[in-house]
């Protein structure tokens, strides 16, 4: 996919994220908007997954550890043809499969996540299995910066380097905000790069909204042979909607009617410039 196409996709995805959160009157708006460029690049340029071959043992694996930003994942999976987009009109509604965290009841979702600090261990398990089966698929997992204090992440980080899992890539959506404030104030995990490096990982930092930087990072995996790779993607919570950007209240804020129309208008205007 060209850079222009990716850019247009991101705008389209942001519009849909807002549409379905607005329809559900629920969702994690800010984080979905901060990670959508990462998912866009992954699903449109990196992962060898498709609805037709989703049961292939050779497919790449994507596990979303920050499960609460499921709206970003659902919108991308619908776009890739895993299910009809209209299904998302049932998001979070009574008896819908499309619950507010990733679930395997939705085609294209690898693991049920939502409790934080689980995705990295699951991914390590997938990456170990790839080794055992002499398979070349790769495993990607998206972590939130707010979930890094979960100790299980660091247990998994140790195992990943112990087994030299260079078929594993974790991406941190580093939007620097979590539900009760700035991550640096809630529980300071800086310097993330040094911590992971000291755990035996190879680390790169990118602008998590710059598709070219993201693609270059993914294209150069593994960053070092015999080491798991970490991409620290610097992002902005609420990215793309000026009144949401960097604003804590949009962690799981749902726009009202006027706000929703203003957001869609803003995105339409951006689309016209691409």
């Amino acid at each position, binding site marked *: 996919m060209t850079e222009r196409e990716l850019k247009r996709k991101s705008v389209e995805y942001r519009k849909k994220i807002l549409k379905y959160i607005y329809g559900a009157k629920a969702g994690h708006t800010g984080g979905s908007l901060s990670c959508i460029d990462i998912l866009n690049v992954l699903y449109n340029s990196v992962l060898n997954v498709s609805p037709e071959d989703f049961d292939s043992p050779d497919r790449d694996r994507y596990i979303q550890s920050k499960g609460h930003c499921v709206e970003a994942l659902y919108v991308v999976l619908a776009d890739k043809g895993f299910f009809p987009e209209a299904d998302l009109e049932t998001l979070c509604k009574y008896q819908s499969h499309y619950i507010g965290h990733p679930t395997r009841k939705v085609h294209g979702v690898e*693991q049920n996540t939502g409790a934080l600090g689980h995705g990295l261990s*699951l991914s390590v398990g*997938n990456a170990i299995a790839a080794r055992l089966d002499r398979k070349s698929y790769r495993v990607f997992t998206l972590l939130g910066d707010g979930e890094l204090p979960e100790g299980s992440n660091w247990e998994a980080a140790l195992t990943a380097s112990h087994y030299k899992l260079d078929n594993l890539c974790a991406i941190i959506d580093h939007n620097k905000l979590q539900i009760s404030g700035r991550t640096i104030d809630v529980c300071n995990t800086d310097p993330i790069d040094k911590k992971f490096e000291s755990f035996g990982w190879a680390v790169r930092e990118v602008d998590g909204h710059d598709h070219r930087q993201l693609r270059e990072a993914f294209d150069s995996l593994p960053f070092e042979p015999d080491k798991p790779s970490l991409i620290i993607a610097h992002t902005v919570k609420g990215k793309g909607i000026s009144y949401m950007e960097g604003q804590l209240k949009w962690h799981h804020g749902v726009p009202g009617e006027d706000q929703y129309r203003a957001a869609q208008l803003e995105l339409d205007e951006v689309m016209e410039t691409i």
Partner: protein
Amino acid sequence: MGALEEIKSETQVVGLANLETFSNTLQALAENDKHIIVVTSDSRGSGKLVPFGAKFPEQLIEIGIAEQNLVGVAAGIASTGKKVFAVSPACFLTARSFEQIKNDVAYSDNPVNLIGISAGVSYGALGSTHHSLHDFAALRAVNNLIIAAPADNFETEQAIKQAAALDKPVYLRFGKKNMPHLPSTAERTFEFGKGREVLRGEDLVIIATGEAVYPALEAAERLHSGYQLQSSVVSMHTIKPLDYDLLAKVAQKGVPIITVEEHSIYGGLGEACASFLMENGFNNKFKIIGIPDEYTVTGSQNDIFNHYGISGEGITQVALTLLK
């Protein structure tokens, strides 16, 4: 020799520890199946898995002492189609990793076989940190998980083989002491969710699980030789799904029912039976024997069993009281 004579016999052959049967069975399975994967948390020694690891080094994944990660990684491996056994002391496996069991194994339906070794009060005087008296209660409330405690070597071997063949999440727990065989007169069938009536009688029903089954048999022998009472003894190896058909069948005798378990009296086999019986109109006299809600007394597994009446003598006394 009848079942009761076997129990009384001084020449009785005591089997292996269920733990050893587990490791032997797993190793035999792995001979023909490279998809059998063991995941340990520095527990290969206590899990009797050193020979397994030496023979199949690729099939034993060591995580180190990190039980949350143990279960998460096991779930990740299992999701690719392998037959994964996550082996760790039951106390840590079911408490430290509870959320991973709930979400990554049960809710995500990753068919991990969770093997809780040295379960219940097997660690004896090491104390409460090392006891698992909560595991049935905690895990019963988790959807999509088979929970079982095999009583002897036969049940253990069958449970391991069937767990390996079953594409579902399973929790098995057992201890590390050598176990007597259940009476040879009992039917040699084992199926998760189907209890085994290993002794039949008309005066009393004792429903036990895991290593508490043998004390139940000893009580049956005492009640017979001392009081001419005939007891039914059920090895209710599977706590969930519970064998409601068998429960109803034995309850229909209308005689007192005693449950015995190496677990808290809260939330385990006894309360599972009680809720079924009450909801279905049975009003048999009923007593739960287990570990009461207190700081567990210090001692060996045997000491603790005797202290709380998980013994031939203790169960006999409860039976006589109920039968008054």
